[in-house]
């Protein structure tokens, strides 16, 4: 059975693409045949984060328009077995996609025995984002500890509950997961940033993980390497924990929520 998971948020720049890359890579590393699809038509960057930008020949729009085959369009990852990338088009706009066209692509992927289809949503709550979440069985709602991001996440939850295929067909609702990214425990401790508890209270959906704000994320995206492959980094480990929970280990304790203890001098001058 193929599972389709959308990584969504409403707001831009919160870490959807970073998350899509790491979740897809993590699932493939554990042996699941996984494809990650960039739905950000016109603004693709998943290929950069995955480090396969020079191998893009065809893209999602070609595939939807039946100008290329699935085999020609999928890019096989060079590091991880079982991992494939389906890039977005750089030149077309969002209107190039249709639900019927995406449905055909999803059907082909299911016939090719993929275990997971990860959909990297564009920002916004318009057509592009709706297209990315339409076929989802589960949703990873990516949220920063910030007023506008939390509000947009709530709006996306509304759309998942009323405009996804599952809701339209009166099937079991899309399973929702909250992923808090760019978390800065120090600023939470100082009362300057919403805490994990605040956000869970407000959005009232199960917490999949907390990804700390970390300079390693930028280093990795510079190199074109999903941060989950950096076993030493906190962000990488936090994504790895999130995979465990996604796969059913829901009681796994959350890490990286505490601020490192500051010494007197660094508190005074830091």
């Amino acid at each position, binding site marked *: 059975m193929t599972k389709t998971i959308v990584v969504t948020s409403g707001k831009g720049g919160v870490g959807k693409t970073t998350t899509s890359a790491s979740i897809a890579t993590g699932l493939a590393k554990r042996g699941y045949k996984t494809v990650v699809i960039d739905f950000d038509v016109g603004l693709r960057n998943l290929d950069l984060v995955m480090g396969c930008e020079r191998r893009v020949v065809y893209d999602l729009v070609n595939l939807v328009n039946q100008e290329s085959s699935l085999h020609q369009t999928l890019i096989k990852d060079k590091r991880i077995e079982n991992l494939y990338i389906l890039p977005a088009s750089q030149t077309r706009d969002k209107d190039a996609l249709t639900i019927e066209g995406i449905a055909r692509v999803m059907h082909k992927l299911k016939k090719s025995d993929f275990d997971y289809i990860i959909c990297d949503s564009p920002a916004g709550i318009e057509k592009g984002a709706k297209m990315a979440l339409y076929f989802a069985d589960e949703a990873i709602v990516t949220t920063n500890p*910030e*007023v506008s991001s*939390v*509000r947009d996440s*709530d*709006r996306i939850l*509304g759309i998942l*509950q*009323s405009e996804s295929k599952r809701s339209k067909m009166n099937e079991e609702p899309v399973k929702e997961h909250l992923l808090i990214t760019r978390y800065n425990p120090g600023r*939470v401790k*100082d*009362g*300057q*940033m*919403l*805490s994990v508890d*605040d956000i869970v*209270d*407000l*959005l009232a959906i199960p917490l999949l993980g907390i990804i700390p704000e970390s300079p390693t994320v930028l280093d990795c995206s510079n190199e074109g390497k999903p941060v989950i492959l950096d076993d030493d980094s906190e962000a990488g480990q936090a994504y790895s924990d999130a995979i465990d929970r996604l796969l059913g280990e829901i009681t796994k304790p959350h890490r990286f929520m505490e601020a490192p203890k500051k010494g007197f001098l*660094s*508190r*005074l*001058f*830091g």
Partner: protein
Amino acid sequence: MGFFKFFQSSKEDQSAKRAKDRLQVLIAHQRTDRTGPDYLPMLRQDILDVIKKYVSVGDDALSVQVDQQDDCDVLELNITLPEDAEATANALSVAKRRAQERAQEATGA
């Protein structure tokens, strides 16, 4: 910066608390709009327009919520007055009463 922050009482710095309070209001609005009756957003706008005839308030001054109580729906209106609005409070209470009457008509209560 750090030097002064060290001596600052942390209570003065609790902007996260304000963020949470604001979000609670915002999210309650959004949820009412999507789970309440279809006419609710329009009803809310109409009530707001009436309030604005008497007091100058922002769009977030009014929160509208539908609660289930036993076997009837209760429409709850909350209007936040601006600081300097005491003089217009009387006018507002008139506006509020009229709004409630219209809301009751609209829900058929």
